[in-house]
């Protein structure tokens, strides 16, 4: 394998956008490694529309959005290797890769961008009692079965969790002739976008039961039904149990950034996002290893993934071309009450010419608040928000220039008003 400057792990929306940006910033030898036999990642199975409103000012389907980036990547002559799985990433950026024709080989690029995306939280992580019959799938697995393999997992369906994939699959199963009986959501609010609640559930009269969860699974070989109950303070309320006969249970209970490789390389991970801790260049704790997209933190819009990944691509390019291998002093970005996390979690004090984009999520539903960023005691940004919800990522752009000298931290606050 020829020497390459930049290896991007993952050929989904993050990896492709990172590759394009890195090439445009002047990196010659880029290699994108993709585990699947097609580029595009999860977008290939997200056949619904609503992608690209920010990036292309157009409502595209997932495959169409992916195709735009694939054609950019091809047009720029960027090398992509499909069916290639990275087995190991070492702290010195040595990658061990396996491929059906090339066998096992190693690469040692000057920089790496992590773009592996995320995985769904499986049943085993949910503590649902009952047998383990056939018919229980994560929503994304069902999406793959229906949209890629052309197979319908069942006829009568209950969905646990109102994340966007669960909502999208409620509509998808309905269009394919299945009956979706109910969507149960543990939290008192939906984790999905409003648009999906309306267009995937209400359009088809599918009930959404908030503060409800599955408390029992029936059937031994094949699922025959589930029991759903109301939940108060984290516990099922006795007497509220309802039985739903069904042959399929879809789980849409959260996504977890896929960081086995990052962990192996010694990349510091955040306990909140489950993704790498990064600075404002999206560089992880391992020099020359950058991260973007759902591997870094789970996004709700692919447009933001593309933006973030393009930034990672540019930053990796700068790292390679300017040989800026030393990271100067960094200060933490801390979160006030109500803010769950920010990405990045650290800001470099040097390179005062670059703007900083903070992405964050709140921990509950709030109305009429202000998102304020304090540098020391001085507010450097304060923006009014009429509504905030955990399912909708917030973005704050900070101009570097007014950051006071000598500050010890940036603090993000959620304030009344």
């Amino acid at each position, binding site marked *: 394998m020829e020497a390459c400057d930049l290896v991007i792990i993952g050929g989904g929306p993050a990896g492709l956008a990172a590759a394009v940006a890195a090439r445009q910033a002047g990196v010659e030898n880029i290699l994108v490694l993709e585990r699947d036999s097609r580029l595009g990642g999860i977008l290939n199975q997200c056949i619904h*529309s609503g992608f690209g409103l920010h990036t292309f000012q157009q409502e595209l389907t997932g495959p169409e959005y992916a*195709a735009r980036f694939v054609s950019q990547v091809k047009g720029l002559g960027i090398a992509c290797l499909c069916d290639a799985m990275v087995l190991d990433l070492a702290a010195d950026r040595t990658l061990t890769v396996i491929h059906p024709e090339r066998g096992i080989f190693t690469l040692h690029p000057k920089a790496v961008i992590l773009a592996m995306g995320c995985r769904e939280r499986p049943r085993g992580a949910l503590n649902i009692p009952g047998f383990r019959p056939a018919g229980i799938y994560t929503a994304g697995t069902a999406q793959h079965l229906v949209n890629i393999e052309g197979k319908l997992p069942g006829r009568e369906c209950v969905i646990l969790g109102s994340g966007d994939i669960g909502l999208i699959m409620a509509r998808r199963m*309905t*269009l394919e002739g299945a009956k979706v009986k109910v969507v149960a959501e543990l939290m008192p609010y939906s984790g999905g976008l409003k648009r999906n609640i309306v*267009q995937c559930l209400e359009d088809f009269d599918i009930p959404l039961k908030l503060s409800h969860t599955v408390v029992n699974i029936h059937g031994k070989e094949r699922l025959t039904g589930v029991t759903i109950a109301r939940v108060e303070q984290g516990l099922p309320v006795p007497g509220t149990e309802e039985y739903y006969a069904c042959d399929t249970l879809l789980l849409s209970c959260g996504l977890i950034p896929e960081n086995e490789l990052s962990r192996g390389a010694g990349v510091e991970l955040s306990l909140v996002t489950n993704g790498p801790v990064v600075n404002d260049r999206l560089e992880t704790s391992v020099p020359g290893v950058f991260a973007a997209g759902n591997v870094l933190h789970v996004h709700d819009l692919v447009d933001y993934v593309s933006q973030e990944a393009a930034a990672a691509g540019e930053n990796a390019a700068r790292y390679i071309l300017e040989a800026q291998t030393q990271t100067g002093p960094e200060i933490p970005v801390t979160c006030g009450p109500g803010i769950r996390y920010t990405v990045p979690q650290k800001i470099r004090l040097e390179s005062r010419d670059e703007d900083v984009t903070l992405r964050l999520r709140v921990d509950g539903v709030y109305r009429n608040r202000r998102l304020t960023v304090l540098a020391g005691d001085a507010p450097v940004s304060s923006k009014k928000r009429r509504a905030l919800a955990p399912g909708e990522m917030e973005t704050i752009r900070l101009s570097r220039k007014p950051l006071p000298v000598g500050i010890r931290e940036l603090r993000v606050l959620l304030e009344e008003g």
Partner: protein
Amino acid sequence: MERKLICIGCPLGCELTAQVEGGEVREVTGNTCPNGERYARKELTNPTRILTTTVRVRGGTLPVVSVKTAGDIPKGKLLACAAALKDVEIPAPMAPGQVVVPDILGTGVDLVATKSVERA
């Protein structure tokens, strides 16, 4: 008649109440901004959607190809259009934008492929 709906314009998700008389929206309340009223009027008089689904492919590298209506169709025709595609099978190869079913169910809108499927 009073109709209730949730605005999808932003995370606020305003709960809108509309007074509808004889198919005409008289008044919209509960909205915080003009988008809410516009949304309610469209939803209550002429709700439309894009249908996205799959169609079987013969002799392709994938068993199904993803498709969409090239424009909005009436919301009420979503299920009928999806059902009409149950027995449709098209030969590979398919390219994005290629018409799979012209003028689906007389809506005046074509159903087009959204991804490429090569010949196996």
